[in-house]
């Protein structure tokens, strides 16, 4: 029961990647990211439940941190930045929406194929963990390189981070809480700074298109 709940969460998280690749509305995209983060934030507790009856404080701290940051704070910051601009849609990305969904699906299939070739040295909570993590990571990278708007690029980075978060579940007992919190804190400050910079980009160029950022090149 718990096993299939974990599996379902992971599969749903992968599908949300595709949903993010398919949406053109940035606000919807941000909300999808928040949903994905919420689902993933439940995992430390679920994985903890498998081992013992009551998951350790460690799992709860991480869940609380992830929910607070990635479900509320960061989407809030991004939506706020979005509200200051006039453009709410991603128009004409480098790779079209249907094409990027297809590419995302190819990435997912490839991640599963890859994960099969990398047997884990220990028993994992579920064998979906590694492929889902890799798939999320590369879907995030795809979003990062194929989109023009600064906000969507930040979202891509956050999706990459979510992929790593999934991978980190393998090491739940091994990583000290301090490191996990440090990672979350860095993530937050990073996104905060990115938010400020996106705001400045918009003010400077009246746009959030990063393709306007092409003044620096080899002369």
């Amino acid at each position: 029961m718990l096993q299939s709940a974990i599996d379902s969460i992971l599969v749903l998280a992968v599908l949300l990647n595709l949903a993010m690749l398919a949406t053109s509305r940035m606000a919807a995209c941000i909300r999808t990211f928040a949903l994905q983060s919420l689902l993933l934030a439940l995992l430390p507790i679920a994985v903890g439940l498998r081992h013992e009856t009551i998951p350790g404080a460690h799992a709860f701290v991480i869940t609380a941190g992830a929910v607070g940051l990635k479900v509320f704070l960061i989407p809030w910051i991004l939506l706020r930045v979005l509200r200051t601009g006039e453009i709410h849609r991603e128009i004409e990305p480098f790779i079209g929406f249907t094409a990027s969904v297809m590419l995302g699906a190819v990435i997912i299939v490839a991640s599963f194929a890859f994960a099969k070739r990398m047997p884990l040295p220990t028993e994992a909570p579920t064998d979906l963990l590694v492929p889902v993590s890799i798939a999320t990571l590369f879907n995030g990278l795809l979003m990062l390189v194929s989109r023009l708007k600064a906000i969507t690029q930040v979202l891509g980075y956050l999706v990459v981070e979510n992929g790593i978060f999934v991978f980190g579940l393998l090491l739940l007992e091994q990583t000290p809480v301090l490191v996990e919190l440090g990672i979350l804190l860095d993530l937050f400050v990073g996104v905060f700074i990115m938010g400020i910079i996106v705001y400045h980009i918009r003010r400077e160029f009246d746009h959030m298109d990063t393709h306007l950022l092409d003044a620096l090149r080899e002369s």
Partner: protein
Amino acid sequence: MTAVRAVLFVPEMLVVLALPPLLMSVIAKTKAWFGGRVGPPWLQPYFDLHKLIQKNAVYSKTTTWIFRAGPIISLAALLTAATLIPVLSNDSLLGFSGDIILLAYLLALGRMFTVLAAMDTGSSFEGMGASREVTFGAMSEPALFLAFVVMAVATKSLQLSEMIGPKLLPEWQIAGPAMILVVGALLVVLLTEACRVPVDDPATHLELTMIHEVMVLDHSGPEFAFITYGAALKFTLLGSILVHAAIPHPEGFNVLSPPLRVLELGGLAVLVGAIESAMARFRLNRVPMLIAGATVLSAIAVVLVLMRRTV
């Protein structure tokens, strides 16, 4: 096949053949309920069919025999398909190993003759509808077949009645997420193939927004009755594939099973009606995204199932 089963198939097929207009009626009633109306009487689709049968057909002078053969061949293909798909029980009438291939060709044959008949009229409207029908049909086929692959791998069988039969029950425990994806993909395929919202809107009379309805504008009389009945039958058949995959009944004959299936199909019709009430039709250029999404769901399900199989 035991003699008892052989005898039981007769009433079963009769119910299957009688059911489709009623399901259409359920959809209409659901939509009416959402809209706060009473809606047409429950038996309205039967009355419509009856009325159409009694009329005379009118043929345009530009049409040939293809136009007349289209509806008949389509209906015949669907009726043949009905013998391969289990609807009320876990068995089909004529199932054999590999029958999904035949099923695919039967569905394609039906579609091909509808399309040919539409093009035979020489009308640009109908040509446009035909083009859309073929496009979306071609796109939804991979989704359907990848879903079949999942079930074939899960049950190690190529006979439709076994693929969506009791053998699927353990699969829901081993690879639940994959099966959910398959059901989602099948739902999209059903909506596409049966021309329902959000892919197509059977209720509008604007030719520009329609896909299926626009193709059959020139048909009249008994032939239009065949087409209407055929569309309902197609919905029933694909719907029962979906229902069987989603809720596998345990092995063996059970008195409760057939009535339960009827209820499940009714539930599916309510669901489709609810979707039609809650959603608007997609813009035409967003539809490929939806169908591609269904294909992706099926593809991921294939990966998940293959992974669990070989581990």
